């Protein structure tokens, strides 16, 4: 099918082996840039960022031979559109035992879009501790940033139009690993 004609059916742009390769590459990049990943703490943003963070932690352990602290960071209460929708259900924030003070925190999310989620995550981090540095790893960067935010590690840059929907499915949550690209059924809702 022509990549630029979309029917209602979303099509898969990444499959399980692609996702696995990308995470392996990102893990190597983290080790390289963090010079051994000694002080790395991975924090996934719920829901799917958490699974990606755990997978990255496994890969990092495979490379470095050490356990990498991994946790989750819920950004719900830090969202800038909290007042625009009914109260949202909170997700779990789980900070590894040693905390994040003085560590290199790598935030992990599935899709980077407007950048508003990451802004919220940076605010949330500020209430939890003071990392040495914060970096960002995403599986898909689909563009259309609304804030001056960029990712340090990107699985795939995926050029999209504003109206398209990018949906990441992971086996832990959805039963299979895939990234779907489709046309929004209704007017695009700019979430975070």
């Amino acid at each position: 099918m022509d990549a630029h004609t979309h029917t209602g059916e979303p099509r898969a742009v990444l499959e399980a082996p692609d996702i696995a390769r990308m995470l392996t590459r990102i893990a190597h990049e983290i080790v390289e840039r963090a010079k051994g990943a000694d002080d790395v703490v991975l924090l996934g943003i719920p829901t799917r960022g958490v699974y990606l963070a755990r997978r990255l932690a496994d890969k990092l352990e495979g490379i470095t031979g050490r356990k990498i602290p991994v946790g989750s960071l819920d950004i719900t209460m830090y969202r800038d559109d909290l007042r625009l929708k009914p109260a949202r259900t909170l997700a779990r924030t789980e900070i590894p035992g040693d905390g994040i003070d003085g560590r290199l925190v790598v935030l992990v999310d599935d899709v980077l879009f407007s950048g508003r989620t990451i802004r919220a995550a940076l605010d949330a981090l500020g209430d939890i501790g003071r990392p040495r540095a914060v970096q960002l790893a995403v599986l898909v960067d689909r563009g259309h940033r609304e804030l001056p935010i960029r990712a340090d590690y990107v699985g795939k840059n995926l050029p999209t139009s504003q109206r398209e929907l990018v949906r990441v499915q992971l086996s832990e949550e959805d039963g299979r690993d895939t990234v779907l690209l489709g046309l929004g059924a209704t007017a695009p809702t700019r979430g975070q």
Partner: protein
Amino acid sequence: MMRHLISAADLTRDEAIRILDTAEEMARVADRPIKKLPALRGRTICNLFFEDSTRTRISFEAAEKRLSADVINFAAKGSSVSKGESLKDTAQTLEAMGVDAVVIRHGASGAPYRLATSGWIDAPVVNAGDGTHQHPTQALLDAFTMRRRLVGPDAGIGRDLAGRRITVVGDILHSRVARSNVDLLHTLGAEVTLVAPPTLVPVGVGAWPCEVAYDLDAVLPKSDAVMMLRVQRERMNAAFFPTEREYSRRYGLDADRMARMPDHAIVMHPGPMVRGMEITAEVADSDRCTVVEQVAAGVSVRMAVLYLLLGGNESDTAHPRTEEK
């Protein structure tokens, strides 16, 4: 959809579980260096207390401040109420000041309902105890404590209290805590037994979704949680039992009685405790007594209620988590 929290009976099972699950996340804020969340920044909440209360008012105030709300405390003593102002005028004053929510404690049963439904104010109303009617946040914090102890903090997420046997002992007649607990625990699937002297059991208890018993010793061995209520001396305007000693002997919880409870069973008390009356010091200080946990749970549960009522653009406790990117 929940807009106010007036009665524990108004909550559906899903709404109640959503509040408890949210409270579980709120509880984790207490472990952080900065115990504050920005969810209610710029919102003003008025604590309207027409009746004396220390722990409930402080608990609400702590919850409001942890959610970054602006707090106005209004105690009837020394206010215009003592000069004869009516509830309606007080409400309209608050409305004119642009208050976003009202937490009300009132000696008259039904005052929060009146406030919420009379059109005097638009803001959500949270009942912090009205007369002998309801105290819904107390029931929620009790259910939260039970779920944590009996099911587990993580294992409990999304779960109710199905099949748990809860015994509530003491002054049922004057107790809004008992009423709220019966309603909420029934909604959550627990089996509630009330134990009290016949004089302290209200008329019409037959219509409540619970059992009534008069012999504490017979009920204790099959209880997962035993909630001791304070004998409310200030409401005792008649001779409900012969002497305090007799009450204490028949309905008080001492170490011997506690030993008859199953090993996993917990002892609860909404506070303030009268040691030596309904509970002995030995029981109150034991590991099985959850009084202090209940106080901590109170802040988490009240944070959850205020967040769900005020955190979004409209109150909605049944809305599923939205998942768009």
